[in-house]
């Protein structure tokens, strides 16, 4: 098999693995049912990803890359203030089609808190990448690095808390009103 064909097959397989994990989560993941669901075999999965851990790492890496690409897009569109970022993020995340991703995020977060090594890069992507994305424009606006990180931290925490509430309750209106109250202060 040529290397290009191999990489293409791996990418296609990864996409199907991602779809499966989106539906089933990482907890209790095992190769056999996964292989059946993606019309592959445990042997092929191991060939492409080396191990189950290698496969999990590949899925997480691709999710983190997508998030960084999203940050780039927002930066290019000059969505850089905390208020604008959160407004854009809420508009996106509150769409019904994003629901499964949101659930998977919180499920993985809980698993990663117990066992960070099993989810390489996940918590860094969930906290540090966001802090950098939110904090950089604040720092460019004249805040000290420490102030910028504190501000980025509180914005991320609040936004994440809203998402947690939303994933559990789906109460779009109540959370929307709370976000409005929060924005009063972000704009102040």
């Amino acid at each position: 098999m040529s290397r290009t064909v191999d990489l293409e097959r791996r990418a296609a397989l990864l996409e199907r693995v991602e779809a499966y994990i989106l539906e089933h989560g990482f907890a209790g993941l095992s190769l056999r049912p996964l292989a059946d669901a993606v019309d592959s075999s445990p042997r092929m999965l191991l060939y492409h990803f080396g191990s189950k851990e290698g496969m999990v790492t590949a899925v997480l890496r691709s999710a983190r890359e997508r998030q960084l690409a999203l940050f780039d897009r927002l930066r290019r569109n000059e969505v850089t203030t905390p208020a604008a970022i959160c407004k854009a993020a809420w508009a996106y995340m509150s769409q019904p089609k994003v629901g499964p991703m949101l659930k998977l995020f919180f499920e993985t977060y809980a698993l990663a808190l117990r066992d960070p090594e099993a989810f390489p890069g996940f918590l860094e992507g969930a906290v540090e990448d966001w802090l950098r994305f939110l904090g950089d424009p604040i720092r460019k606006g004249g805040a000290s690095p420490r102030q910028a990180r504190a501000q980025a931290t509180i914005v991320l925490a609040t936004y994440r808390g809203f998402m947690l509430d939303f994933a559990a309750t789906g109460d779009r209106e109540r959370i929307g009103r709370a976000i409005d109250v929060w924005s009063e202060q972000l704009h102040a």
Partner: protein
Amino acid sequence: MDPTAELRERDDLLDRLRPYVDQIGLCALTLENSARALGLPEETLQDFFPTKEDLIVALIARNRIRLRAKFANLDLSMPADEFRRVMWTFYVETASDSRLFFEAYGLALHDEHYGDFLHGINDWLGLLKDALIRRGIPPDRAEAFATLSLAVYRGAMMDYCATDERPRVNAAMELWFKAANWLTER
């Protein structure tokens, strides 16, 4: 056995199991490893909790009751700013409960056995909302503000549990205390 004694024994088992739960996490819990941790035959544990799911549901409920009792002991008449700081200290001191909460939450999102947990998630919202109304905030605004406050504490705990960076998260909470004063005083 009389029912009260049985309930007490059940609660006692849950409390004794808790350090083990904090060590391995809810998701890795089985009746087998729990019984081993308690030094009991699995059948004895099964008399109280027929399935692993029953055990996990009971652990979550027990934790909720304990936290509610602890919360009920807080003096709610203190000034609002002080109350927010006390709340944050409360969260930090009960960080292992937050971990359990996030885990229960992750389980509940994917497994209908734990669906009740998601319905109960906003018990705290009612408590906080009532406290705000008692302080003279109009009900509509109180609900929005309670939703916002809970989001802040939970989100900050997610960060703190993941990174352990207390100075940074505390500095962020100082910004929240300021913002909350601004929002409630205008």
